[in-house]
Each structure stands twice: as C-alpha cells, then as structure tokens.
C-alpha cells in the first residue's frame, strides 16, 4: 500500500504512471458549481464575472475534495466574442442562437477579437483567480475550444460541415483566423498560473468526420496549438465527449498528458474504459472517464455509487492486466449537467467511492 498522498502528489504520480494510494478522481463539476456560490448564482452572472467563476471552483474543491480543477465555462465563449449572439437562459448552459457565418464569403470576415475584452477576458481572469487560489491543493488547468469547434459554433454545425465539402478553402481561411485567436488565448492562459490547458477537439469523432477530413480540418491546426501550449509551459490536456473519438490521432499523435472521454454503452463502437486501457491508450496519457453524466441528474446516490464502483473495479483490473499503475482518473464522461435539478450529493458520492475503493495493491 502506498502512503497517503496529497492531491497534487497523487495527480503527478498518475500522470507519470507511478504508484498511487488510490486512483485520482475528478467528476467534471464546472457550471454546476455556481450553485455553491452565494447561495447560487445564475449562469449569466457566473459566466460574466471572473470572481464568481473562480469562486465556484474554489467552493467545489472545498466541498468535494477533487484531485484536479479544470475551468470549463461553456462552448460559446469564442463564438460570442467573434460576434455571434449567445443566449443566456437563467439556468441553462449558454449557447449560440444566431450564427455569424451565412455565406462562404463570411468566413474571411472573421477577425481575432481583443482577448482583454468580452468573455475571453472573463475566462482568462477567472482561470487565473482559481488557479492561484488552488495552486497548493490540486493540479489546475484552463479550458479552451479548438478552432474547428469554435468555427462550428460561429457557423452552425450543418453550415460548416457542408462547407467542408463545398467551400474548403474558405473554411481553411477561417480556421487560420481561429488558430490565431486560440494562439493568443494560449498565451493568455500561460499567464494564469494554471498547470495545463484542456482543449476541446470535439469533432474528432467518427460519427462526424473520417480520418482524412479530421486531419485536413483540425489536426494540422491542433498540432500547432498543442506545440504552442507546451512551449508556453502548459500541459496539453484534451476533452472529447464524442461517442467514437479519434483516439489514434488525439492520443497517439497529439500526445496529451490527460485525455478525458465518455462512453456510450448503446453504441458497440464506443470504447469502454477497459478497452481504452487494453488498447494501449493509457500507456502514455492519463485517461479520464467515463461515468454517465446523466446519472448526476437522474440517478439516485445508490445508483451513482454502484456505477462508480463498477468503473473503478473495471479500471483497476484493466490497469493491472496492462501492467499500468495509475493512469486513469475516475471522472464523468462529460460535464456534470449544470442543471438546478442535478443532485449535488451524487458528486460527493463519486469522490467517496473512489477514496474507499480506488486503492491498488502493487
């Protein structure tokens, strides 16, 4: 049995596949944490005020005792700052309801916004505040949308996917602009004190794009951004909650330190935790997953304890078979629903089960 470790020691050990006292855990509690601030703030307040945003992660850490803190706001930050209209409902994740790309000519009109203004600035400042506050407790990371995701939010997914086929040069022009926008954000995140930066490369999904399209429209830009991220001293992390992620590209090629993913049991092509480990993807990256996020909303505490226990046992067995020591973080496959009806006790239950059942005999 390994001696008790701090969160940071445990996280670092897991990243290096060293022995741990127990597996790491980080249910992806982001927007839901706004309920812990001042008795609960609205999504609009939370996503516009860096202090409220940061405080939610600080309160989440106090309440749940996570092993990591990663600062996702929502997936309309970049599109909104590019000029798209973002709808803010009181308790709903903000989303783009009016796109800014309507014709192929609109792609070249995109301009990199000033990241010291808008919600880009809120995201950077909020990340800085929670990264500074939690730097002695956990490994922290910012969160940013990849260029293809940000473009799909600006154009609408259907418009964009059509233009991949019909107007590829216009799309590439826009992706160059968004890569520049992302580059400036990377430089901003490098000043926050966060240890890593988590990229959302959502469209690396075989339900949407094949290898050829994905390489053409994202991988070439992602390589540049991943390199810049590392050059700026940040660990590259990736989140992809798609059902059939491009694991070879996003893990073997991109070589992230952490790869967060989901599992869709109804889809036979969706890889389970044990399959991901058996196929060697945890050999070089700390894999995070894959509790069904909906269980936090609709499941009872007993149900989520059972689900957590099952995935923990599955992971421990698979790691042992593969000869790995610690390269899996018990997490939700995607963000915990930030809904007001999400059962907060279910978040604590996941952490509690991993603390009790996540130890590994070496």
């Amino acid at each position, binding site marked *: 049995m390994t001696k008790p470790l701090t969160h940071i020691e445990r996280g670092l050990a897991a990243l290096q596949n060293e022995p741990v006292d127990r597996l790491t855990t980080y249910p992806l509690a982001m927007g839901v944490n706004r309920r812990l601030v001042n008795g609960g703030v609205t999504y609009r307040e939370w996503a516009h005020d860096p202090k409220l945003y940061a405080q939610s992660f600080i309160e989440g850490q106090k309440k749940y005792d996570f092993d990591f803190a990663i600062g996702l706001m929502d997936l309309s930050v970049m599109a909104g700052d590019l000029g798209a209209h973002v709808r803010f*409902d009181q308790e709903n994740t903000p989303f783009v309801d009016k796109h800014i790309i309507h014709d192929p000519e609109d792609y070249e009109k995109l301009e990199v916004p000033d990241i010291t203004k808008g919600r880009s600035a809120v995201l950077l400042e909020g990340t800085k505040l929670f990264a500074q506050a939690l730097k002695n407790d956990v490994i922290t990371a910012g969160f940013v949308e990849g260029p293809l995701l940000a473009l799909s939010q600006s154009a*609408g997914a259907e418009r964009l996917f*059509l233009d*991949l086929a019909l107007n590829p040069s216009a799309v590439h022009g826009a992706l160059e602009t968004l890569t520049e926008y992302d580059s400036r954000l990377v430089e901003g995140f490098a000043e926050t004190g966060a240890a890593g930066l988590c990229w959302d490369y959502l469209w690396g999904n075989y339900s949407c794009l094949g290898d050829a399209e994905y390489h053409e429209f994202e991988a070439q830009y992602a390589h540049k951004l991943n390199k810049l991220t590392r050059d700026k001293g940040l660990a590259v992390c990736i989140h992809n909650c798609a059902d059939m992620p491009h694991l070879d590209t996003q893990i073997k090629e991109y070589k992230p330190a952490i790869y967060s993913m989901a599992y869709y049991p109804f889809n036979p092509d969706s890889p389970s935790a044990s399959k991901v480990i058996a196929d060697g993807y945890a050999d070089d990256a700390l894999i995070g997953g894959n509790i069904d996020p909906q269980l936090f909303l*609709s499941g009872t505490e007993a149900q989520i304890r059972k689900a957590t226990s099952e995935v923990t046992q599955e992971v421990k067995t698979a790691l042992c078979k593969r000869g790995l020591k610690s390269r899996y973080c018990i997490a939700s496959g995607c963000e915990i629903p930030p809904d007001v009806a999400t059962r907060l006790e279910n978040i604590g239950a996941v952490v509690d089960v991993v603390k009790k059942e996540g130890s590994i005999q070496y």
Partner: protein
Amino acid sequence: MSKEEILKKISDAVVNGKPAVAKEGSEEALKNGVRPIEAINDGLVRGMAIVGDRFAQHQAYLPQVLISSQALYAGLDVLLPAIPKGESVAKKTVAVAVVEGDVHDIGKNILKTLIIAGGYQVIDLGRDVPTEEVLAATESKKPDVLALSTLMTPTMLSIRDAVDGLKESGYRSKVLVAVGGAPVSQTFSDEIGADHKDNDAIHHVAWLKEVL
C-alpha cells in the same frame, strides 16, 4: 434516355452529392413520363439509402451525408409538386422537432433526411419549437410518430412537457413518441413514457421499419 437510366442518374446524383444533376434528372423523369413517386422512391430515396448505409458503416461522414441530402431535396422540389392529387407520397408520417429552448438541429436534420430515405413522409416542425406548437401540430397533422430531440440537458424537460401534454389531451395513445439527442438516456425515456429512445438516425429508421 431510358427510364432506368434516368432513375440511375437521379440516384447517382444523390450518392455523389450533385443537387443540380438531381434536379435535372428529376425534370427529365417528368418529361419522359416517369411517375413522380417512382422517381422519388427508385431514384432519390434509393440514392439516399446508399448514402445512409455508407454512413452507418463509417464509409461516409457528415459532409457527404449533408451534400447528398441537398441533392435529395433538390430532386424533391421538382417531384413533390408533380404528384397528382390523391396519390400519397408515403403512407406513414413522422413529425420531427427540436424542443423548446434548443436551437441545435443538425441531428434532427440528418434524421429527417434518413427517414425520407427510409420511405416515410416527414413533417419538420423545426427547432426551438414551443411545446404548445408541438402539441397542436401533432393533433392537427396526425403523424404516426412524433420524434423529439434536444442536445442539452436542461431542455430535456421540454420533451417531458410535450409528452405530458399529449397525455393530458388524451392524444398520447394515438401517436408513437420517440426521443433522442446526446443527453437523452433510456432511463429518462422510460420515466417520461416514450415509446422509443435513440441517439442516432440509422437506428431510429431501423426502429421505424419495425413498428410502422
């Protein structure tokens, strides 16, 4: 050009994502006396079914499906108005909608295309559709299936509201309800009393073929 050659031209245009060719082939079909329904089923729908199969087998991806669906609709724009009154396009009808509070409709639009390719008629109620509109359209247009979807967790409640509304109005027993979208789980589907849950269009069409 023989009838078979015209139908193949239409089908190939859909497979290859050529809207102008699909339109041209559909016009040629009408000029040459091909019945519109035959041109739809043996040309447009046949082509889209090939694309759907390739999509299911991961030999084609969203961009290809979308440009093929453009060709499908280009042909339908020509052929649907030419159908003689009283001759129905399809016996069974599916209404599709993204529920109130959500504007993400790419999934709904893919589903719509593949349902048409499956040989059914589709009533597209749109996106961010108020619950009252879903209920009114269901009762007035009388689809065999009502397919409701959302991409976001909070708006799943709008799906629940629509199903509850159908129960309250007494219409629930007259329509099959299917639900879908990334956050929609089987548990949620069971809780609200839906008849079916799917998270991809291919399986949904397979289910339609079982129940309709």
